[in-house]
């Protein structure tokens, strides 16, 4: 693996075309364009070559060639990620797994599905439906995002509190090491001997290997689900009501909060009947057997009343349940209508800190002269502040980024973390030293070295390297973004 023998672009394309359908070895700028960024389009870069292999053996050969010549490899699923984790490397290969889109098998009795990494999250649930089963994690991008990307980011969704993240819902992966060697991690049992490599791989952002197959767990579809919507005249009261539900021993299937800006935008967009003017809105979904839902819904309604809800509405039909959720699920595009651009943050905080964090954020909002709307996975403390800005106003994106960085610092300060479900990618790499000490970052790098000593898998993402300061400077001088994202997330 000498640098001298490194093939140039033309030679690399020729090499790949000797074993991959030439049409799927993409070298021209126009056809490469859709691959220049993921869902966080402020960060974009054109790769050297894009490849779309269709067999594990082809992926293996791509990896072998890249390993031999020290060429960076960035894996990509559907490109819906929100941390620039799939942004290409200018000197590297963008490895799309889009052609790995087959559900290999479903075992209804064992409640598992074997799927290729390019299968869409929602497609698993759709395929399992005939057996009365579904796949638990449901990121808002589930219609488009792929399971391979979910594994890379340890994706969540609105049902995490009860049903867990990706790491809780997968049993095994087949993957390729940076050298192209096959590794089988996990099993069809619930655990394996020794250190938990499944946990290490999940959420590793494509830095440790390339996943070529995933076995996921499937859950029985609940008999019934009902949602209670409650409005409050203060965030504090709504936060207390969430605590009241948990203290009562109820674990809702979903528990979401929106602040007044988000309520207003969502209502204008979705006409779901949200009470505009309320300071906070809670959506609490209870699922389970018919008897359990009936018992818990009654308790939730009376708890909301006791915590001072100004209005309470419970879905009486599937259509009404869907309508109440529609507002929340369209909150991001709705906010996109009231502002030219928005930037979505993803911190997690202890729930009890919510009122404090929102107050501080409002103060910063005044300081930066940028509006912020909040949607909150209240059950698990995952906060998505949406900073509203206009990319056409010079300097406004830079102010937005700085504001966002300060929000993440605030999350860490109150005992939370810089990312709950979107991942670090490039976007939050500058905040990693806020959450982790230098020794901890050195340990992360040592783990990376154990898998990928030359550091060619998704370089520059996830974990700042010891050359971080250098990269930091490079980031600050990167070209300005084209158009900001409007991709919905979580």
């Amino acid at each position, binding site marked *: 693996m000498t640098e001298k023998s490194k093939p140039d672009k033309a030679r690399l394309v020729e090499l790949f075309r000797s074993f991959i359908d030439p049409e799927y070895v993409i070298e021209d700028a126009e056809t490469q364009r859709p691959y220049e960024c993921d869902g966080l389009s402020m960060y974009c870069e054109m790769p050297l070559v894009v490849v779309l292999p269709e067999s594990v053996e082809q992926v293996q050969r791509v990896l072998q060639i890249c390993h031999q010549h020290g060429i960076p490899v960035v894996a990509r699923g559907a490109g819906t990620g929100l941390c620039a984790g799939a942004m290409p490397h200018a000197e590297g290969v963008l490895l799309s797994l889009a052609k790995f889109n087959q559900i290999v098998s479903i075992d209804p*009795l064992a*409640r598992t599905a074997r799927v290729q990494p390019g299968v869409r999250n929602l497609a698993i649930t759709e395929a399992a439906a005939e*057996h*009365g089963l579904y796949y638990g994690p449901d990121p808002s991008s589930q219609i488009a995002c792929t399971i391979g990307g979910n594994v890379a*980011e*340890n994706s969540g969704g609105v049902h*995490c509190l009860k049903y867990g993240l990706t*790491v*809780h819902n997968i049993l095994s992966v087949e993957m390729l*090491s940076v050298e192209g060697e096959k*590794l*089988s*991690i996990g*099993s*069809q*049992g*619930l*655990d394996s*001997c*020794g*250190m*938990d*490599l499944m*946990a*290490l791989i*999940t959420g590793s952002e494509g830095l*440790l290997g390339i996943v070529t197959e995933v076995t996921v767990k499937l859950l*029985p*579809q609940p*008999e019934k689900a009902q949602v209670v919507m409650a409005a409050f005249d203060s965030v504090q009261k709504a936060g207390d009501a969430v*605590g009241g539900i948990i*203290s*009562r*021993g109820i*674990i809702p299937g979903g528990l979401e909060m929106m602040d007044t800006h988000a309520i207003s935008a969502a209502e204008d967009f979705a006409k779901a009947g949200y009470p505009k003017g309320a300071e906070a809105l809670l959506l609490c979904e209870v699922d389970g*057997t018919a*008897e*359990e839902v*009936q018992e*818990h819904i009654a308790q939730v309604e009376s708890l909301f009343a006791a915590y001072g809800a100004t209005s309470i509405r419970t879905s009486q039909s599937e259509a009404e349940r869907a309508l109440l959720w529609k507002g929340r699920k369209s909150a991001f595009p709705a906010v996109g209508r009231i502002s030219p651009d928005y930037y979505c943050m993803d911190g*997690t905080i*202890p*729930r009890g800190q919510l009122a404090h964090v929102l107050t501080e954020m409002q103060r910063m909002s005044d300081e930066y002269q940028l509006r912020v709307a909040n949607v909150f996975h209240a059950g*698990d*403390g995952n906060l998505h502040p949406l900073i509203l800005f206009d990319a056409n106003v010079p300097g406004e994106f830079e102010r937005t980024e700085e504001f966002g960085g300060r929000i993440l610092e605030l999350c860490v300060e109150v*005992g939370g973390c*810089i*990312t*709950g479900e*979107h*991942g670090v990618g490039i976007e939050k790499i500058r905040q990693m030293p806020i959450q982790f000490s230098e*020794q*901890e970052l050195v*340990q*992360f790098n*040592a*783990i990376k*070295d*154990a*898998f990928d000593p030359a550091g060619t898998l998704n370089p520059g993402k996830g974990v700042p390297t010891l050359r971080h300061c250098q990269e930091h400077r490079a980031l600050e001088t990167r070209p300005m973004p084209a158009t900001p994202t409007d991709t919905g997330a979580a």
Partner: protein
Amino acid sequence: MADITALLQQQVLSARADGSKLNIIGGNSKAFMGRVASGEPLMVAGHSGIVSYQPVELVLTARAGTPLTELVAALDEHNQMLSFEPPRFGGAATIGGTLACNQSGPGRPWWSSVRDQVLGVRLLTGRGEHLRFGGQVMKNVAGYDVSRLQAGAMGSLGLITEVSLKVLPKPAVTRTLVFDVALEDAVALMNRRAAEPKPLSAACWLDNRLYLRLSGARAAVDATLAQWQGQGAESQGTQLEADDTFWAALRDQTLVFFEGDAPLWRFSIKSTAVNPDLPGNWLIDWGGAQRWYRGDASMAQMQQLAETAGGQVSLYRGGDRQADVMHPQARALQLLQQRLKQSFDPDGVLNPGRLYSWM
């Protein structure tokens, strides 16, 4: 009830400096697990106490040497629980050892494992560095998941000094149904029941009896009980009185099945797998996904049976503990784990050879 981090750190640093090895001991309740220990004892039991517990956040943080019984007592006051039902081993088991050995009880398939519920750890590496990974919130994807990596590592990557866990409310009601049914039918029935959207929380088979535990809201449990009692097996199901005693004995491995010196093998396999063809005494838990066997066998034979059944096997207790007792690893995975060990503990100070002979 003390923080002895500085003392523990000093012991690791001195061991590293003089080239000696350390044998991590918490409550000394799981000395029978893994390969035979070597090295100077590093006593962690003194590093004990709950650091923080916020019932409304469903999060508890405790020092590694804290006995499980102390955590359970604190949780009881708020009607919450360690949902993974770890074995308490007569009250000696600690939370650090429970995580290091990845110990979860009967509710594991429905209520998660200790590995699933871990939110963060503090870890003393073989370099003597005291590091913090994960945190005290339920969603956290910053950096590699070093916390959950510790589950099952048996201290080979570091001495866990503190654990943050997600805890859960106790179910309002619990009832148990018992059916007379043979092994293969029981495995099929457990899996069919688990595929229904009902409040099943444990499924175990022993001595030709199938035990199904239901937990949740009263109305849901009662309705399911009535529905399942007359269905699914040839015999009518009966409700087990004092069922807590049975599930606690299963959790703590104090049932008669676990007594005696015969080697105890643990299969972690596909829940629907045809039972390995070995005559003798079996106990099936986790709705079919964890199967215990008592008797002499070679690791090579057991490995083959486990792989046929889609999983892995370990010699959990008894037998030859100089030999490897964990499922043999593929060559590439062995190298990878050796490199990971090297990254945390370059001089091999912590629990050498305890997990694998080659690590």
